[in-house]
């Protein structure tokens, strides 16, 4: 039989994939470069590795959700990303949808719990 933890981890990473997009968009009202986002998201409990984050940032830029600018004034040139007006709209829409999703999921999981004989009766 497959390991329970392993299976959970596999499914969880699928679930996380979409949440990372929301997490990234939420942090980019101010310009940030890729690696500065890693600890910020990590502190908030959304662990993401740089190898996933950097390609994602480029993809979101290509979808015109983000704008980018190279800062070459510092010793190390860095590419800063910022939410575009279109991205802001999309982010707000996503948040609304996410909240609806939470409510639906809560309802589904509560129902499941209610269906179980809890023996209090």
């Amino acid at each position: 039989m497959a390991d329970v933890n392993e299976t959970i981890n596999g499914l969880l990473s699928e679930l996380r994939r979409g949440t990372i997009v929301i997490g990234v968009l939420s942090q980019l009202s101010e310009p940030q470069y890729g690696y500065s986002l890693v600890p910020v998201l990590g502190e908030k409990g959304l662990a993401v590795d740089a190898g996933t984050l950097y390609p994602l940032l480029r993809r979101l830029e290509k979808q015109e959700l983000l704008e980018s600018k190279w800062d070459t004034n510092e010793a190390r040139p860095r590419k800063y990303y910022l939410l575009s007006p279109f991205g802001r709209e999309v982010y707000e829409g996503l948040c609304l949808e996410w909240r609806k999703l939470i409510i639906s999921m809560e309802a589904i999981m509560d129902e499941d719990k209610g269906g179980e004989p809890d023996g209090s009766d």
Partner: protein
Amino acid sequence: MEVIDRYIYAVTQRLPEQQRADIKQELRGLIDDMLEERAPAHQATREDAESVLLELGHPNALAAKYRGYDRYLIGPMMFEPYLTTLKIVLISIGIALTVVFAIETIVAPTDILEHFTSYLVSLVTAGAQGFGWVTIVCALIDFRQQKEAASASVNKGWKPSDLPHIPDMNTQIKLSEPIAGIIFTVLFTVLCLYSIELLGVWRLHDGERYVIPFLNADVFQNYMPIIWVVAALGILKESIRIIVRKRTGKMLALHIVVGVAATVLICIMLADPAIWNPDFIQQLEAAGFLSAGAEGYDTVVSIWSEVTEWLVNIIGLFALIDIITETYKWYRIKQTA
């Protein structure tokens, strides 16, 4: 650090040219940031560098994430029909060349070594040609299908009524039909390419066989581009038949267009008087088949002088019969559908 340069190179090599510089710079910044976190103030060791690279993952995987899609010359959807067509074409080239080799050896057994070398050389060159053309045709079809699929997903234009019908036995093209078509085309092309002089009247004389050819091989050489076009059209049509495997109006139209085009091209070629062997009658006489004044001489001469007209008519008739049978098959399916 050299290992970092090699990592960045390995990632960016697998990305489109125009994105490389930007990704390279960004990736370098990222790796420097990660290194600094491990060992402040430029004290990073090779072990630090390697642990950073291991954390970023296999360069192929990272490049794949950057690309976001996979690229194929011939995608998984097309690969099976591609392999089928390729096998048929290569096998029929092999058979055709072997047949030519056998005939040549029978005609002139003393030159067997020479025939064998040219047989091997032809196997390689014709095999490469066949491989190349099948690959190009399948890649083009695949490219078109991918573009169609992309535009369909953008327009969300999927309707359940668009689903392909389950092919019933009548509408399905039997695999043997296109296979026979390809084998015939390849045999025809190989014959034209390598052994057009074998087409003629054969003569056995004192144990030596020789052939009086119908066609003038030198002039015929100039028409090789036409043969190539006809062969390419034929193989293209049969490949599409293998992929679609269904009789439809479009397939019928394709069949007719290719059939008419090939017939017209061949007839244009045959209608050139220079393509025929100018000394055919004299060679027949010299070989002792014919003698002036003998019975039948006039008949042979008059047939020979009208051979072009006859052949063009016969080829035209065959093309017509082919088109009518194919149309009839399609019409019957339409009736029952």
